[in-house]
């Protein structure tokens, strides 16, 4: 049951929401759509689900053209950021509603609802109304409605965004288990890079209506095909520097000179954009010879397990992310070392070269 997008676009009036996109999704996969707000995640999902029609292009489901097929005939389910349930129906009836519309026998409905409710720990709440439940339970009900009917396509549009931290973590853990062993193609939209990393599966990075990169999550993270993809998939934001490589020297800005070692030495001479993830820029007390950075601390965010430090080097802001507590004072001069072995090089146009 593959889902294939063939050169689809989505426009409304003069605004373009999705630029020409072609992509194939395989059955049994968990696909994270990662991008900032308004990057086109929701529109892309709705076009794939059939709620909105693509302006151009075709959508093939298992080789069959479904571009003009109405959404209720496509066997899809969707979970939204808001908790969408029928307000007057009990949790049981809510979960059963898609099965009732499909005309499934009462015995089967009972059995399937019972199983899903068990899985989502809703069994004690089955007779209650959604308004009597906590936010987390309301969203579980909505998720239960989505998974009870064995859809071919399941869309989760930022389903955890309206939940508080604890509930989010809880559900985040349960979600992949729900879909394991199913043949459905699951899509999960989020703005948070670490959510994509937690889920694994595949990730598509989106930017302004385009899929920038699609592939296994770890690969997209480690090997961004472009500066854009790297920026989308980095939190805190990746450090990007304009560098010039001449022979064995790497010049950052106008005055910082580092030694171009290892694979960097093999780059042809020229100017590049160098990306360095914050956790490859670490505070140090010793003076590093090759990749030394010293700057004034601007902001520190210490969560306990890690410290994020923003510091200024000759007018350019760098971000460092290190494990543990590093009590640096704002305004002080601090020293950092960059791990150049993990740097990523892009052409000035943003294409990955190393």
């Amino acid at each position, binding site marked *: 049951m593959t889902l294939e997008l063939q050169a689809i676009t989505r426009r409304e009036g003069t605004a373009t929401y999705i630029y020409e996109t072609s992509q194939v999704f395989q059955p049994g996969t968990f696909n994270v759509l990662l991008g900032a707000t308004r990057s086109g995640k929701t529109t892309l999902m*709705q076009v794939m*689900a059939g*709620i909105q029609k693509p302006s151009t292009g075709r959508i093939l489901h298992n080789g069959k053209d479904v571009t003009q097929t109405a*959404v*209720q*005939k496509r066997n*899809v*389910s*969707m979970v*939204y*950021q*808001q908790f*969408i349930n*029928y*307000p*007057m*129906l009990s949790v049981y009836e809510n979960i059963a*509603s*898609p099965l009732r*519309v*499909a005309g499934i026998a009462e015995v089967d409905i009972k059995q399937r609802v019972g199983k899903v409710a068990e899985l989502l720990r809703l069994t004690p709440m089955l007779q209650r109304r959604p*308004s*009597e439940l906590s936010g987390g339970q309301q969203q579980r009900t909505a998720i239960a409605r989505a998974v009870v009917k064995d859809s071919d396509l399941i869309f989760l549009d930022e389903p955890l965004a309206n939940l508080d931290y604890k509930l989010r973590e809880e559900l985040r853990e349960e979600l992949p288990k729900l879909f394991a062993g199913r043949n459905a193609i699951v899509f999960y939209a989020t703005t948070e890079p670490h959510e994509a990393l937690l889920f694994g599966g595949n990730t598509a990075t989106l930017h302004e209506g385009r899929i920038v990169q699609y592939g296994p999550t770890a690969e997209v993270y480690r090997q961004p095909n472009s500066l854009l993809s790297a920026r989308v998939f980095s939190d805190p934001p990746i450090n990007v520097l304009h560098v010039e490589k001449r022979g064995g020297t790497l010049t950052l800005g106008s005055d910082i000179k580092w030694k171009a070692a290892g694979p960097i030495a093999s780059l042809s001479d020229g100017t590049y954009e160098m990306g360095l993830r914050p956790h490859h820029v670490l505070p140090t007390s010793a003076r590093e010879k090759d990749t030394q950075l010293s700057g004034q601390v601007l902001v520190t965010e210490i969560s306990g397990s890690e410290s994020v430090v923003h510091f200024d080097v000759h007018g350019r802001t760098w971000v460092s992310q290190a494990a543990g507590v590093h009590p640096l004072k704002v305004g002080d001069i601090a020293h950092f070392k960059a791990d150049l072995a993990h740097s990523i090089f892009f052409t000035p146009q943003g294409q990955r070269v190393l």
Partner: protein
Amino acid sequence: MKKTYNNKAWFFVLPVFIMVAFNALVPLMTVVNYSVQETFGDNVFTWSGVQWFSDTLTSDRFHAALLRQLEFSAIVLAIEIPLGLFIALNMPKKGFWVPVCLVLMSLPLLIPWNVVGAIWNIMALPDLGLLGRAINSLGIPYNYTRQPYSAWFTLVLMDVWHWTSLVTLLCYAGLVSIPDAYYQAAKIDGARPWAVFRYIQLPKLRHVMTIAVLLRFMDSFMIYTEPQVMTGGGPGSSTTFLSLDLVKTAIGQFDLGPAAAMSLIYFLIILVISWLFYTLMMRNEEA
């Protein structure tokens, strides 16, 4: 440490208190005052206890007016609420026509009551009015100053014309506040339009509809200007609603005591019905 109390806050409440006192408490107490006394000229008052209340409650005239009033409110609500909801459901939700529809719907609400009465008075004239002539030319005898059913028909039609918009606007506001995702979710389920209405729109409109029913009930129960302008309560006493009866008692006959007792009973009826309705509608809501 001694706690200091700052009583300045009370001064800020004072203006509101004075206003409420002057426009609600004082007039109400005046009415209460009249309702327990016999009034003569020259400011002579004598105590009469609950005499006026028991008189009013056992008076056939009051019963007839109350029944008329209840019938009128029931008819008007039975038409305006479904009709208003129906129009709201069919109004466009976005695009060029939204402001046009909203303005058109608001127009009747902008017209003063007595003007509404005058417009319909002229329009329904059996020999000159557009409506009156049209109905008569269809062969249906229609004359609102002679036939009670014509008078009722005209009053109901006028009220529907005047106030359905209010229900529509309230329902419309409720409808557009339902997130799109609900409709999408229903669409994905393959729910039929009736199911969408029954299980999404109606439950989500419950609060605004409660308000709409309350407003329309209270307003229609207190209707005065329109029947006064149209027929003055006639023909006979067929459109003499509670408010008209009250004014006749108070101003026409100058029976201040009975009129005061009647006002209080009238007020209590509205209060009790509204409270009962609201409590019934909200009983399944938790805070």
